[in-house]
C-alpha cells in the first residue's frame, strides 16, 4: 500500500512538473509582451523585462519558477496587482479559499444528491419516479453551466428577487445557493445516471442472485451488496468531476461576481500576467491531481480486488 501511494505521488509530481512546463512555454508563446501598452517605449519594456527576470533564457526562467515554487513562493504579479506577491493575491485575499468553499460545496452536493437519486431510479426501475429522474438527468447533462447559471440568476434574483444577483464573497448561506446549484447540477445528473446504470449492472450480477437466494432483505441487497460494487465507476468519475467543477467555476464565478480563482485565472490569461497564470494553473492542477490521487486510494477501500502494488488496466 505504501509503495503504491509513493508511486502515485511520484506520478502526480511528474504530472505537475509537466503541466508547469507546458503552461510556461504556452504562456511565452503568446505574442507580444505583458508590458506592451500604448505608452510604453522599447526601453521601458526592456527595463521591466530585466526587473522581472524576463530577459533571461526561457530554460532559466522555467528553472527559477520551479525552484521558487518548491520554496512555496509563487512570485510577484506583473500587471494585475503590480508588485504584490502572488501568494498574497491568491491566499490572503481569499481567492483560493472562496474557490475551495464553492468547489467543495458543489462536489458534496453533486455526490450527496446524485448517488441517492441514481439508487432510487435503479431500485424503482420502470416506475414514474425512474421516468421522471431519467428526464431530469438527461436534460441536466445537456444544459451548459452558463445557461443554467444565467437562468437561475434571472429567475431567482431578477424576477423573483429572492436572492442577490451578486454572490460576492459567499458570506451568508443564501449567497451559496445559485453558484453551488449551477456548478453541481450537471455533475449531480451525471452521477445519478452513472449510478443508475452501474446499480442496474450490479443488480444483474450473480452475487446478487446469491444474496437473494440466502434470503437477504431487498433493502439490504441494494444497500449492502449492490451499492458498494456500483460505487466503483462513480469513484472513477470523481477525478473528472473535480476538473469539471473547476472549469465550471470560471463561468459561475463571473456570472455571480465571485472574486475567486477561476475568474482570476481567465483574467490573468487575458492580461498575460505570467506569474499569476503560472500560479493559478499550478494551484488548480494540484487540486485536480490531488483529487485523482484520492480517487486512486479510495478504490482500494471500496474494491479489495484491486491490488495496489500492481498496475491495473
Amino acid at each position, binding site marked *: 500500500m505504501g509503495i503504491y501511494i509513493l508511486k502515485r505521488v511520484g506520478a502526480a509530481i511528474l504530472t505537475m512538473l509537466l503541466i508547469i512546463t507546458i503552461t510556461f512555454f504556452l504562456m511565452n508563446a503568446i505574442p507580444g509582451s505583458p508590458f506592451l501598452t500604448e505608452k510604453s517605449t522599447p526601453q521601458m519594456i526592456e527595463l521591466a523585462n530585466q526587473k522581472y527576470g524576463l530577459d533571461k533564457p526561457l530554460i532559466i526562467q522555467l528553472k527559477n519558477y520551479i525552484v521558487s515554487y518548491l520554496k512555496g513562493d509563487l512570485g510577484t504579479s506583473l500587471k494585475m496587482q503590480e508588485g504584490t506577491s502572488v501568494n498574497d493575491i491568491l491566499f490572503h485575499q481569499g481567492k483560493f479559499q472562496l474557490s475551495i468553499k464553492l468547489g467543495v460545496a458543489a462536489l458534496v452536493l453533486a455526490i450527496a444528491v446524485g448517488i441517492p437519486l441514481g439508487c432510487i431510479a435503479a431500485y424503482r426501475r420502470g416506475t414514474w419516479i425512474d421516468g421522471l429522474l431519467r428526464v431530469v438527468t*438527461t436534460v441536466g447533462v*445537456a*444544459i*451548459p*453551466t452558463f445557461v443554467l447559471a444565467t437562468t437561475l440568476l434571472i429567475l431567482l434574483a431578477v424576477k423573483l428577487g429572492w436572492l442577490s444577483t451578486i454572490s460576492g464573497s459567499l458570506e451568508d448561506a443564501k449567497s451559496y445557493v445559485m453558484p453551488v446549484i449551477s456548478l453541481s447540477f450537471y455533475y449531480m445528473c451525471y452521477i445519478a445516471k452513472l449510478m443508475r446504470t452501474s446499480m442496474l449492472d450490479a443488480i444483474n450480477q450473480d452475487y446478487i442472485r446469491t444474496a437473494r437466494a440466502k434470503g437477504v432483505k431487498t433493502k439490504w441487497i441494494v444497500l449492502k451488496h449492490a451499492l458498494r460494487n456500483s460505487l466503483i465507476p462513480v469513484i472513477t468519475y470523481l477525478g473528472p468531476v473535480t476538473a469539471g467543477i473547476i*472549469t465550471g467555476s*470560471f463561468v459561475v464565478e463571473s456570472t455571480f461576481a465571485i472574486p475567486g480563482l477561476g475568474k482570476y485565472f481567465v483574467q490573468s490569461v487575458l492580461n498575460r500576467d505570467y506569474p499569476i497564470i503560472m500560479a493559478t494553473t499550478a494551484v488548480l*492542477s494540484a487540486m485536480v491531481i490531488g483529487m485523482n490521487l484520492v480517487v486512486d486510494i479510495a478504490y482500494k477501500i471500496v474494491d479489495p480486488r484491486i491490488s495496489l502494488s500492481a498496475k491495473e488496466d
Partner: protein
Amino acid sequence: MKDKLKSFSPFQVDAGKIMDMYGLSDEDFTAAADSEKESMVEMHKSISFWQDAWRRFKENTVSMVALVVFIVIVLFAFLGPVLIPYDYSSQYRSAQNLAPMQYSENEQLTMLATSGADAYYSTAVQSGSLTAIRKGSHYINWKGATYAFSNDKGIENAILMLDTDAENPLYYVKLDDIAEDGTYSEITVVEYTSEAAEGADELELSTKIFPHVFGTDSAGRDLMARTMFGARVSIIIGTMAALIVLVIGSIYGSISGLAGGRVDFIMMRIVELIYSIPEVLIVLLLQVVLKDPLQEWFDSGTSAFSQAMSDLGTGIVSIMITFALLYWVTMARIIRGQVLQLKKQEYITAATALGASNGRIIRKHLLPNCVGPLVITTCLQIPSAIFLESFLSFLGLGVSAPMASLGSLCSDALASITLYPYRLLFPAVVLTLIVLTLNLVGDGLRDALDPRLKK
C-alpha cells in the same frame, strides 16, 4: 417394445385403450418421413448484425424521436439560412433590439405602402434600410416583361414599386410621403423601356417581407439567422472534433493494443499523463496562444487548405487543434481495451492458427468488432465538443463577431439579459437540444450495438 413395457409396468397401460383415447390408428405408429420431421422445426430467418442493430434502434422510441429532432435541427442550421431573407452578419439599421416575431420599422412601412403594388424593390428588404438605388442603368424582370430604366441621381429613401394594372406601372414613393397608415399620394413615375442597356444592373423585385422570428440584437442583426449560423458552426465543430478524436484515438489505441509489450506500456503512460492534465486550463491558454499565429498563417497562406481554415476562423481552428492535442486519450483507451480484449478471443487465435494474415485479421475480425464502441464514442464526443466550444465562446475565447456560435450568442445575450431574456433563450434552447438529442441517439446506439449491455 411392447414386451418391455409389459414386463416393467405393474399398472400396465392398455396400449389399445390409449390409441382409442387419442383416436390413433396403426398408421400413426409407422416411422415418420424426414420431411415430416423437418416440418416440425421452424427455421429462424437469420439477420445481419446491422439489420438487428437497426431493428433494436427503431424499437427505442426515445432515441428515434431524438434522431428526428436532431435531423430537424440540422435542417434548421443548414437549410434554414436559404429560406429566410436575412443573413447572420448583416446589420439591419432600423431593426435594432426587436422582440421575436417583429418587423422592422421599414418593413412595416413597406408592408403598408405596397398594398396596391405587385412587387417592389426596396433596399430595406435586403439590407434593412432604404438607402438608395444607385446611379446608373437598371432593369427589372417581372413575369416575362423587362422594365429597363436609368437614373442619374440615385433614388434616396424610397421604395420602387411595380403595379402592372396602373397607368404607369413603374414608380417610386418617397418614404417621407408615406403617411402613418401607409397611404401616399405623391409618386414619381419612372420611365422605362423594354430593352435593357448593355451592362445594366438587374434589380430583383420582391414581395416578401419576413418577421424577425427570434428578434434582433442591438446591432440590428437577425437572431434567427444568427442562431442558424451558430448551430451550424457548433455542429461543424462538434463533428470535426469528433472525427479528429476518432482518427487520432483509434490509430493510437490500436497501435498500442496491437504492439503490446514495451511500446504499449510507454504509449499508455503518455496517455495517462495527458489524461491527468486538467485540459481546460491548457485549452484556455492554447486559445490565446494560437490566435495570432493562426491569423498570420491565414493572412499569408494561399493554399486551398489555409483558405478553408481561414473561413472557419481562428477560434474554431484552435478548438480543433486543442481537440487533436488533448481529447483523443479516452478514445485511444477504449480502442486499446477493445483490441486487447479481442486479441484474447479464441476466434482470433483460431484465425491466426489457420494462417490468416495480420491485415486480414484486422479487417475481418478486429474492425467489425470495434465498430460498436467507435460509433458510440464518436457520437457522444460531438456533444462534449459542442459543450467545450460554447464554454470557450462564453468566456470570450471562441469565435468572435460577426461570426457566431451558440456559445457566443449566449454570451452576447448576457450583456442585456434582464431586458431581452429571449436572446439567451433561443440559442440556449438550440444548444441544449443538440446536446440532448445527440446524447439520446448515442445512448440508443449503445443499446442497439451492444446488446450485452441491455439486459
